[in-house]
C-alpha cells in the first residue's frame, strides 16, 4: 500500500434521479500535484469537486481528503480545503478586503492574523490598490484573483478551482495560472477543472479526463498523448511527389520514428522527437521530390478530442 494520497476516491457515484453524474470514479491525487480535471460541460467535474468538499453527498462510494470523509467530517475537510466555484461570487457591496475579512472570520482567524494575511494576499494577487474598492466594480479577472486570495486565506492543503480561466482575458488567464502554479510550489495540492485545455495543460502535472461521469483517461499530459496517438509526441506531415514504399521503409528505419502512415502523396509520421532533418534527408535520398513538410506537437487537445470523439 502506497502512502496515503491527499485525495482518494473509491467507486464514487453520484446520481440525480436516473441521471448518472459521476460513475464509479477512482481517483488519487498526491501532495503537491496540480491535477487537471478535464472534460466537457456536464461531464461531472463540478459534481465530483462538490462531493470531495462535502457540499454534496455521494450516492455511493467513498472519498477521502487527507484521510477525512467529506460526508462524515465536513468541517475537518472544509478547514483544509479551499474552493473557488466556477461562478465565483463575492458580496458586491463590500470591498475586497471586507469580503476577505468575512472569509477569515468564517475560518475563525483572529483579527490581527486576518489583517496581516489579507495584506499579503491582496499584494500577491495584485489587488492591493483595489482592496478598498467594492467588488461590484471588479472585472471578472480581478474577481478570479480575489477568489484565489479567498482560497489562500485559510492556508489550505488542497485547493479546488472550478473553471478558473473561464471568461477572462488572456492576460488574466496568465495571472491566474501563475498564481495557481505558485500555490503548488507551496506544497498545496491543486485540483482544477476546465474544459479549455490549452490554458491549463501547461501547469497540470497530471490530468484526468472525465466524460459522462467516467474517468476515461488519467496521467501526465505526455503519457496521455502517447497513449492516444500510439506513443509519438510529434507528428510530421510530409508531402512528396510519388511516395514509394522504399521511402516509407527508410523513414521507418530512422531512429525515433514510431509509425508511418501514407495516404496519397501524404506521409504521416509520428515520432518521439523532432526528426525533420533526418526525414528530409531520407526523402532526398529516396530521390522523391519534397513538396512540403510540417511538424505538429501533440497537445492535450488532440488527446482530449480523441477521447471525446470516442465517447
Amino acid at each position: 500500500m502506497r502512502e496515503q494520497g491527499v485525495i482518494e476516491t473509491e467507486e464514487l457515484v453520484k446520481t440525480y434521479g436516473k441521471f448518472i453524474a459521476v460513475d464509479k470514479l477512482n481517483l488519487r491525487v498526491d501532495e503537491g500535484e496540480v491535477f487537471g480535471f478535464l472534460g466537457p460541460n456536464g461531464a461531472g467535474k463540478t459534481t465530483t469537486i462538490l462531493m470531495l468538499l462535502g457540499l454534496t453527498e455521494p450516492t455511493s462510494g467513498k472519498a477521502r481528503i487527507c484521510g477525512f470523509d467529506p460526508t462524515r467530517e465536513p468541517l475537518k475537510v472544509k478547514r483544509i480545503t479551499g474552493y473557488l466555484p466556477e461562478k465565483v461570487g463575492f458580496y458586491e457591496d463590500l470591498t475586497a478586503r471586507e469580503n476577505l475579512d468575512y472569509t477569515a472570520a468564517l475560518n475563525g482567524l483572529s483579527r490581527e492574523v486576518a489583517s496581516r494575511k489579507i495584506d499579503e494576499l491582496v499584494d500577491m494577487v495584485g489587488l492591493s490598490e483595489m482592496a478598498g474598492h467594492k467588488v461590484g466594480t471588479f472585472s471578472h479577472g480581478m474577481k478570479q484573483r480575489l477568489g484565489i486570495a479567498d482560497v489562500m486565506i485559510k492556508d489550505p492543503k488542497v485547493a479546488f478551482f472550478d473553471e478558473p480561466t473561464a471568461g477572462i482575458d488572456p492576460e488574466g488567464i496568465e495571472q491566474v495560472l501563475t498564481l495557481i502554479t505558485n500555490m503548488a510550489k507551496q506544497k498545496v495540492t491543486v485540483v482544477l477543472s476546465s474544459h479549455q485545455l490549452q490554458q491549463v495543460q501547461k501547469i497540470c502535472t497530471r490530468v484526468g479526463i472525465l466524460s459522462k461521469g467516467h474517468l476515461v483517461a488519467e496521467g501526465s499530459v505526455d503519457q496521455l498523448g502517447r497513449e492516444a496517438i500510439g506513443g509519438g509526441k510529434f507528428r510530421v506531415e510530409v508531402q512528396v511527389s510519388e511516395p514509394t514504399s522504399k521511402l516509407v521503409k527508410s523513414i521507418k528505419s530512422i531512429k525515433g520514428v514510431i509509425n508511418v502512415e501514407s495516404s496519397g502523396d501524404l506521409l504521416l509520421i509520428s515520432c518521439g522527437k523532432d526528426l525533420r532533418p533526418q526525414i528530409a534527408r531520407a526523402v532526398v535520398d529516396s530521390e522523391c521530390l519534397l513538396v512540403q513538410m510540417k511538424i505538429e506537437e501533440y497537445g492535450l487537445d488532440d488527446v482530449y478530442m480523441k477521447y471525446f470523439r470516442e465517447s
Partner: protein
Amino acid sequence: MSGLMAVFWKELADHFNSKRFIILSLLIYLAGIATIYVAAQNIRSGITETTQFIFLRLFTVSGEVQVFSFLFFLSLFIPIVGIALGFDTVNSERTSGNLSRTLSQPLYRDSVINGKFLAGLITLAILLTSIVVLVAGMGLRMIGVPPTAEEILRLVAFIIVSIIYGAFWMSLSVLFSVFFNRVATAALASIALWIFLLLFVPIIAQVLAGANGEIAGAISRISPGVLYGQVTQVLLIPSHPAMFMISMYYTGLEPNPLPLSQSLLIAWPQLTSLIGLTALCFAGSYIKFMREEIRST
C-alpha cells in the same frame, strides 16, 4: 459557533449598511415621532379621575382626524420591515454565487441560516426597541408623567411581542427566499401574502361566517396581524379588557384594568400562535435549506 457569530456579525453589519434598511427605519422613526407628537396633544381628552395607565395611552391615542396611533403605525410597518429583512436571505446568496463559497468554509450549514435569522432578529429588536424607547422618552418629555412599573413591564412585553410579530414576517420571507430562486419573486410573494392576510382574510371570514361573529373572529385569527393586534390591545389598553373576546365569554364585564399577568393570560393563545407560526416558517426554511443540494450549475 465562531462560524455562526461570523455570519451573524456580517449580516448585522449588512443590515445596518443597507440603504433599504436605513430608509425604512428613518421612515419608521419619523412616523413614530409624528404619532407620539399627535398623541401627546390628544392624550388629555379621554383622561378622567379613574384613568390608569396614562403613559401607555401615548402609544394608543390617535389624533382626532386622519392621524393614526403609534400602535397602528407600528402594526403596519412591522410586516414591511420583517419582509425587507428576510426576502433575499438565501436566494441572493445563491444567485450571487456566494453560497457555495461560504459553505465551503469550515462552518456548519445551519450556521448560515441561523446566523442570518439571528441577525435579522437582532436588527428587528434594535429597531423596535429603539423606536419604542425613543418615543417613550419623547412622550415623557412632553407629558411629564412617568410610567409606572407596570406600564414599563407592559411596554417591555409590547416590544417583545412586536419583535415576535416582526420575526414571523421575517421567517415567512426567509421561507420564500429559500423556495424561490428569484429575489423579486420572494419579495412579491411575501407582500402578496401580507396584503392577503391583512385585507382579505377579514373579508373572507365575514363572508364564510355570515352573521356569526364568533366564527368570523376565529377565522380572522388565521391572520397574524389580527393575532398581533389582539395581543397588543390587551397589553396596551388594559382598561378595555380584550374587546375581541367580549362577545364570547365576557359579556357584562366591567371595563376595569386587568393586572399584567391576567392580560398576558388572555393574550396567551394569540401569543403562542404567533410564536408557533414563526417557528413553523423558520423550521420550513431550515429544513429546506439543510436538505438542499449544492449543485453544479
